[in-house]
C-alpha cells in the first residue's frame, strides 16, 4: 500500500518534471524554427506571402518534434514595407506550445 502510494507520487512528480523540461526544450526549438523562417523570408528563400511554411529537412532543427509554422504578411501604409509575423507551434502531450516572432521587412 505504502509502496504503491510512493510509486504513484513519484510517477506524478517525474511526469511533471519531464513534461516541463520537454516544453522548455520545445520552446527553444520553436524559437530556432521561427528565426530560420524569418531569415529565409529576408533572404528570399521563401516568398513574402501569408501561408503555412515547412522547412527543408536538413534545416529542421526540431528533431522528433512535429513543428508547424505559419507566416502572416501585412503590408504597411509605407510602400514596400511589410509587417511579418512568424508563428511556430507543436504539441507536447496534448498541450500546444507556440512561439512567434514579428518584424518589419523592407522589400522594394
Amino acid at each position, binding site marked *: 500500500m505504502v509502496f504503491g502510494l510512493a510509486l504513484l507520487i513519484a510517477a506524478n512528480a517525474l511526469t511533471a518534471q519531464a513534461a516541463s523540461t520537454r516544453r522548455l526544450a520545445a520552446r527553444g526549438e520553436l524559437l530556432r524554427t521561427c528565426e530560420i523562417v524569418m531569415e529565409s523570408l529576408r533572404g528570399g528563400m521563401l516568398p513574402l506571402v501569408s501561408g503555412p511554411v515547412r522547412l527543408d529537412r536538413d*534545416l529542421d532543427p526540431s528533431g522528433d518534434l512535429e513543428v508547424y509554422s505559419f507566416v502572416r504578411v501585412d503590408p504597411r501604409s509605407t510602400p514596400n514595407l511589410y509587417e511579418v509575423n512568424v508563428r511556430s507551434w507543436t504539441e507536447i502531450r496534448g498541450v500546444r506550445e507556440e512561439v512567434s516572432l514579428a518584424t518589419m*521587412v523592407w522589400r522594394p
Partner: protein
Amino acid sequence: MSRPSARGFSVVELVVALALTAVVAAAAAELIMEAVRIAEAAGRSLRSPSLALAVVSVRRDVEASMGLLHPPSVGWTQEDLELVGWDGTRMRLHLEGRDLVRAATDELGRWNRRRVLARGVASWWWRSPRPGVIDVRITALVHPAPGIAASSQRARRTEVRRFAFRGWPGGRSW
C-alpha cells in the same frame, strides 16, 4: 461466520497484486529513464554556452557583411567562410583543430584580429543556398557530464542556423 482476514491471501490474489506492482514499477522505470534522458539533453545545452555564443557571433558577422568574398562551393562545405564588411574589412571563420576561429582585418587590410569563438568543435559546415543567404551547421563536443565519455554521441550538440545578409544588393533583405 469466518473472518476473511483470518484466511490470508489466495495464490490468485498474490499473483494479481504482484502483476499490478510489476506494471506500476515498469511504468515508473520508463518515466525515470525518460526524465534522465531529457535532463541529459538539457544539461548538454547548459554545458555548452560557447556554442550558443558562437552562433550569435556568426549571426552578427553575417548581418554586418555585404556578402561573401569568394563565390561559394555548391552544397555544404567545410572551407573557410570569408565575408566582406560594409567598411571594407574582411572576416574569416574557420576551424583550427577543434577551435572555431574568427579572424578579421583591420582598416589597413592586415589580418591582425583573431578570436576563438568556440572550443571543442567537431565539425563546421556552411553553404549558400542562394546569394545573400548562409546556412551554418556547427557540431561541438559538450563538456561531458560525469560518467559520460566525451566521445559519446550523446555528448555532442549541433546548431543549424540560417542567416541572411542585410541590405543584399537590391535592398531586399531589410
